[in-house]
């Protein structure tokens, strides 16, 4: 953060119910992690969206480079055999 007048950015993850994963819901500014939790509570759980909050400093996230998207993701395109669509599913199996 070069601009000291702006508080650091945090990414917010909310777990909607016990047993589900934390999902990314957005980001916010806060001076520290505890304040980020408070802000996340006020911004992202106003309508009972969650039962648990994670906050992560945005600066701690390493992202893939969009310029490398072709090299990273294109090679998977022609490998349709990786999708499990060639299996015969027995009728007894309901939830797969």
């Amino acid at each position: 953060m070069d601009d000291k007048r702006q508080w650091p950015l945090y990414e917010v993850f909310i777990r909607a119910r016990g047993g589900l994963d934390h999902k990314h819901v957005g980001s916010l500014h806060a001076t520290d992690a505890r304040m980020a939790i408070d802000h996340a509570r006020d911004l992202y759980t106003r309508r009972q969206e969650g039962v648990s909050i994670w906050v992560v400093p945005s600066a701690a996230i390493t992202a893939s480079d969009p310029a490398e998207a072709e090299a990273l993701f294109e090679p998977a395109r022609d490998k349709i055999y990786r999708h499990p669509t060639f299996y015969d599913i027995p009728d007894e199996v309901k939830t797969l």
Partner: protein
Amino acid sequence: MSAAATNVARLLFRYVLRMGDLSLVLGQRLGEWVGHAPALEEDLGLANVALDLIGQARLLLAYAGELEGRDRGEDEIAFLREQSEYLNPTLVEQPNGDFGQTIVRQVLIGAFQLEFFERLANSADERLAAIAGKAVKECRYHLRYSSDWLVRLGDGTPESHARVQSALERLWPYTTELFAEDDLDREMADCGIAPRLAEVRAAWSARIDAVLAEATLDRPRDRPYQWFGKRGEHSEHLGYILADMQYLQRAHSGARW
């Protein structure tokens, strides 16, 4: 109703107004921050606290209306009384000042509400006990929010420290009223409806000392002068709040969303 029961209902009406008006006026005050807070996140944080307070006021004032038995609903009680009929403590009508002053006020009144509602949850009056049970969770968060900020500002830069210390000096004299037990407080405590203010005071004082120590702030000395907002004798500020708050209902009687 017997004469004794009518008398209790009449006293309880005034007592519930005190609590309801505290939440109402403080919620209205905090609402003034919307669109003006130092950061968008704080804007929502303060508005959330304000909405909790207005929610408490609705429950309490609706109950007051039923106790009064004159068919007045929560809106009529909230928006159509005269200044001297409002029974909130003088502290909550004090201006927001800068963000630090608002935070100081929120800590002082938030610790009071928390200690008060925790005890009111055991009230002999079931309706009040239920309202307090709901409010206590809200107040726990309010105090977490405001005392975290007080520590950041008090133990922050020389400027933020000086500002919150001076806000503390300015607002401290209004805290004595919160614990000045009068006949109504005593009567309600004797019936097992309300907590003893001396007990609330001791718990409040311990909480305040702890947060002030962490925030490296000095506890001001108590002063002998006493305010009486809870008897309807207010500072100059309440009239302006009411003018703002009551305008719509007075201009468009019975207006609804």
